[in-house]
C-alpha cells in the first residue's frame, strides 16, 4: 500500500491513507450568537421583528414552518435587531441567515 497522505499525532508524522469520511469532515467554525439561521429548511410564515427592535432572550423573532410544525425561532440572548434577511412567504434552506442581532457581548 503506497500513500502520500499523512496524519500527525503527538508530533509524529505518520504516512497513512485517509478514509472518505475523514476527507469529507468539515472544519469547525465557532457559532456566532448574532447570526440567527434556519435550523431546518422551511417556509417563513411570519416575521415578528424589524431592524432597530430591542429583543429579550427567548423572544420570538419569526415563525418558520417545517414538517407541518410552526416553529418559533427565538432570540438566543438579549440584543438589538440589526438586519432581517427573511421575508414572509420565503422558502429558506437549512443554515440560511434569517436575522442578525447585536448581542450584549458585541463591541461596536
Amino acid at each position, binding site marked *: 500500500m503506497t500513500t502520500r497522505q499523512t496524519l500527525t499525532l503527538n508530533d509524529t508524522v505518520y504516512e497513512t491513507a485517509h*478514509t472518505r469520511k475523514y476527507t469529507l469532515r468539515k472544519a469547525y467554525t465557532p457559532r456566532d450568537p448574532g447570526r440567527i439561521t434556519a435550523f431546518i429548511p422551511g417556509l417563513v410564515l411570519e416575521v415578528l421583528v424589524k431592524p432597530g427592535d430591542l429583543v429579550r432572550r427567548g423572544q420570538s423573532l419569526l415563525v418558520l414552518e417545517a414538517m407541518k410544525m410552526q416553529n418559533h425561532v427565538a432570540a438566543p440572548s438579549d440584543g438589538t435587531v440589526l438586519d432581517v434577511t427573511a421575508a414572509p412567504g420565503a422558502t429558506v434552506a437549512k443554515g440560511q441567515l434569517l436575522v442578525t442581532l447585536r448581542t450584549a457581548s458585541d463591541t461596536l
Partner: protein
Amino acid sequence: MSLPRKLKDHAARQAEATEPHPEAARKQAAQGKLLARERITAILDPESFHEYDLFVEHKCSDFGMAKKQLPGDGVITGTGTIAGHPVAIYAQDFTVAGGSLGLAHARKITKIMDHAIKLGIPLIGINDSGGARIQEGVNSLAGYGEIFYRNTLASGVIPQISIILGPCAGGAVYSPALTDFVFVVDKISKMFITGPEVIKTVLGEEISMEDLGGARVQSEISGNAHFYAESEATCFEQVKRLVTFIPWNNRKKADPFNTSPSRTEEDLERIIPSEAHRPYDVRDVLRAVCDGSDFMEVQALWAANIVVGFARMNGRTVGMVANQPAVLAGVLDVDSSDKAARFIRFCDAFNIPLVTFVDLPGYLPGVDQEHAGVIRHGAKLLYAYSEATVPKITVILRKAYGGGYIAMCSRHLGADFVFAWPCAEIAVMGPEGAANIIFKGEIAAAADPEAFRKQKVQEYTEKFASPYVAAANGHVDAVIAPRQTRDFLLHALAISEQKDEPRPARKHGVPPF
C-alpha cells in the same frame, strides 16, 4: 375425492402458489434481481430447502383486499442446510404485492424465527419489500413490531443474517439493523428510514436513492452493512462462507474445519517496517498467522482504520481484531470503536475466542470526533473487551501508546495472554511527543534546541520505546519473535479451551450504547 384426485389437486394448488406471476417476474428480472425462490435455492445446499406455510392467506377485507389472492402472502419461509449446517430462512417475494408486509406475512416470519430460536439454528432473512401493506393499516405495523421483538430476543442466542436484495425502507429496515450481519448488493440494495422523495419535500434536499442508501453508502459511510458484493451470486458465496465460520447457537462452538496451516511465517518479519511512522497492511499479518491464510473480513469498507473478521487457528474459528496502520495510522475513533465493539460482543456471545493485534498511535484528535462523542463510543470498546469472557489473546506488533494501549485488549482489561514483538513500543505516547513535553524547558534553554531535542527523543526511544518496561512489570507475558506468533497463539488457544470466568450475577450490564 379419491387419493389420486387429491394428489392431483394438491399438485395444482402447489403450482398455483409457487409459480411466479409472469409480468411481475419479468419486472424483477429487468432490475437484475433473482426471484425469491431462486435466491433460496442459490444459498442452500441442493434439494435441502423445505418450505412451510405455503398456503397461508391474509384475512384483510378492507379496500378490496377480500378478493385478492396473494400466494404465500408474499414471503417464502422454511429450513434447509448450507454446507451441512442447518439454517432457517425466509425470503420476501417482491412479485407478490411488492413483497408488502401484512399481518399474515409477518406471522410467517415470526413463526420461522420462533422455530430458529427453539431449534438453535441460524436465521437468514432476505429482504425485498415495498414496505408496510397500507391496506392492513396498524396490523401491518404490529407485524413489524413482532419481528423486531424476536430479533432482539434471538440476539446472542442464534446468529442472525440479513440479506438486502431490493428496497428495505422505513420501519422495515430496523429488522436488519437488529441482526448480526447485513449483506448488500450493488445497485440492488436500498436501505433508508425516509426516502429521497420525503427528504426533498420536507427538507428541500435532492439526492438519488443510490447516494442516500445504496449498497456502497451503507457499506462505506454509515456502517449499517457488513458485507458488500457486486452481484447476488457473489453475495450468496459470502453468506455461505460466513456460515461455516459461526456456530449454530450460543450453546455451541463453531464446527471445526479442516484447513491447511498458514503460509510461511518468515513473511511476518518482512511485513512490518521498523520506523513506527511507516504504513503496512495489517491484514498481511493476520493472513500469515491464520490457517490457510483464510481471513474473512467483516465491514471491510467502513472504518478501515480497524480490521475485524473471522479466521481459523488449527481448524477452530477465532475473531481477529487489528489496528490498520495503512489507514489513518490505525487510530481509534468513533466509527472504529463502534465497529470493533460490536464484533467483539458477537464473538463473546457465540464462544469465539478473540485474538487482537495492536499497532496504534492513540485516538484521532478533532473537534468533529469530540462532538460526535468519541468518549462514549470509545468507551464501548473498553466495555466490550472487559465484558468478554471468551479466551482473549493480544499480540502487540509495534506501537501501543496511551489510552489506545489500554483499549486494545490489554492485560488490564482481562486479556488472558499478552505477547509483544521485539519491535513493540509500549508507552504513554510516541518518543517525539513525550520528549517535547518532558524536556520542554530544557529544549527551549539549550544552546542548540533542535540538537538537544533530537538527543532527548533518542534517549526516550532507547529507554521506553520497547516492550521490556511492560514485560518487566508483567503487563506482557512474553516477548516473542514474529515467527513464533502462530505457535504461541495455537498453544494459548489450545490451553484456553476450557476457560471459565464467572462474573457477578446481573440482569444485564448497561453499556454506553
